[in-house]
């Protein structure tokens, strides 16, 4: 089976005035369908730039990026938007929910930009996605009526509502306390295991990376290590261990 993501000799330069800054200096790796990958590295290592390229928000300067067998380097603005809509779910550190808009409407957002989804179907799928992240009954709540963890779960529901191939999460637990972060990781693991969605999580926290089954380390625009973990930690079990009385969200 062809990998979901195939990156070969990827280079990204930024030009500031006359100076060219080499952010990514030739990176190659592949991610198979159903993997749970964490991307680590200090700031300035180029991991954010890599995330932008993986998320089809930015284009590489050189090298190839095959997503699902499609080379995205040559695609235009609107074709990239189409790919983001259909194949990629985004989860951000700051949640990025629309204020004064209900949870359900926030989740519906990607479907608004998707062809041939009826109002009824949109609603059904949004409800289903909220249900999948454990937020049934909160459909009409607005972001300011939800806790940070709940807001991030709305964001996760939004990322998976259009049935993506991969979910890209940029520091998804960065704005949350450790327990809530663990809950988010538990949801990611569950989506990865049950739905087979490829997960890519950018983090600087080794404790978070421990829940993935593969860890890519970057430094100075280069891939420095690619470790596979045969037995990653199970976030659900850790949650139970943390508070056996309360149970799992």
């Amino acid at each position: 089976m062809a990998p979901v993501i195939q990156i070969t000799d990827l280079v990204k330069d930024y030009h500031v005035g006359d100076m060219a800054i080499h952010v990514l200096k030739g990176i190659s790796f592949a991610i198979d369908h159903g993997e749970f990958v964490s991307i680590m590295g200090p700031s300035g290592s180029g991991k954010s730039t890599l995330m932008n390229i993986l998320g089809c928000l930015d284009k590489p300067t050189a090298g190839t990026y095959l997503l699902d067998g499609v080379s995205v380097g040559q695609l235009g603005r609107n074709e990239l938007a189409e790919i983001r809509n259909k194949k990629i779910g985004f989860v951000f550190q700051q949640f990025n929910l629309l204020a004064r808009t209900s949870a359900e409407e926030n989740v519906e957002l990607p479907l608004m930009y998707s062809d041939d989804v009826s109002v009824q179907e949109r609603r059904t799928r949004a409800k289903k996605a909220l249900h999948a992240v454990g937020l049934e009954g909160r459909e009409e709540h607005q972001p300011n009526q939800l806790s940070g963890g709940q807001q991030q779960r709305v964001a996760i529901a939004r990322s998976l509502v259009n049935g993506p191939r991969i979910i890209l999460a940029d520091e998804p637990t960065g704005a949350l306390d450790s327990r809530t972060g663990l809950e988010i990781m538990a949801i990611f693991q569950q989506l990865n295991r049950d739905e087979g969605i490829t997960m890519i999580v950018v983090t600087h926290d080794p404790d978070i990376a421990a829940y993935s089954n593969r860890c890519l380390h970057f430094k100075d625009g280069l891939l420095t290590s690619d470790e596979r973990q045969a037995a990653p930690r199970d976030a659900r079990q850790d949650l139970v261990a943390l508070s056996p009385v309360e149970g799992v969200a």
Partner: protein
Amino acid sequence: MKKVSASIRIALRALKVNRLRSALTMLGIIIGVGAVIAMIGVGTGATKRIQEQIESMGSNLIIVLPGSITSNGVRLGSGGVATLTQDDAKAIATECPSVALAAPTVRGGVQVVNGSNNWATTVQGVTPDYMTIRDYTMLSGEFFTSQDVDAAAKTAVLGETVAENLFGDGDPTGQTVIIKNVPFTVAGVLTPKGQSPTGQDQDDVILMPISTATQKVLGANKANAKAVGTLMVQAITPQAIDPAIQEMGALLRERHGILPGQDDDFTIRNLTEVFATQETSAKVMSILLGAIASVSLVVGGIGIMNIMLVSVTERTREIGLRQAVGGKTRDILLQFLVEAVTLALAGGVIGIIVGVTASIVISRVAQWSTDVSLLSIVMAFVFSAVVGVFFGYYPARKAAFLDPIEALRYE
């Protein structure tokens, strides 16, 4: 099409979220459209009123005034000498092909009495043709006939103001009034015409046969028993007015024996032309008022652009997110354009209601006649849509071409 409806839905949702701001933005357009409609209403009302007044004078009207002759080096003003006669009127009516009717008139002030009521008014001695020329109709009774003129019958037709002052609400037809000690039978009452373009009450008048007026009421001109005051002439068509003036001028010069090089002893005036000037100035006023009001519409449009630009900046992260989850250039452009157009159109509709209401209030309170035409409403609506698109496009374009990475990172 589905995407368009989705964009509209998204835009409406965004407007609903910012209710107060949306309302304040609309206010500019509301005032603009309201002002345009009310001002054009006032202007059109004024024009229409003047048109009605001109029509009340009678159509294709030409007036021939006597006078201005030089006697021993002294030039007398217009009407200084009675140079026109009833025969002149007859000759004009029969010999000028462009003239439909010509009526001689004499006029004078009198005191008219009915029992204990009396009233100072103007008597006009005329012929039945005068009724046709001036477009009079009868409120009650009948106009006198040419037999009455031949017989110098003591019969009179009252204007409504006179009838009201002498008889109150009663119908004077068939009653008797005393004018200069002569009893007159009231043949009828004229349908009111209201003010003339010069502001005179056209209903404060008594009409009677010209023969009766000269012989029994006003007294004949000492020099010429057949002399009259003015001639009222009606041309056959509006286009015939100028030829009629030419023909009458030539005919009167010939009849009065005026040699080439000598001045006319009469003056011909095209009344329609005189009043058309007033009509034109009313129209100019209407356009001017509309133009001034349009300025506020443009200012309202700039208000929309301003708010949309603020909105785009403020919602940069939202735009980035929308782009990240699949919003294409066109989707974002459409969303912000629809927001702007919705603001403008909603403002336009409310503005139309405000403008129509203002016109009604102006006509009630200020007693100005206003006339809001359907055309001005349709135009205001279309114009506000155009304002929305015009002033909404630039901010919308700015939003649509934001860099998603920059936008998502925007603080």
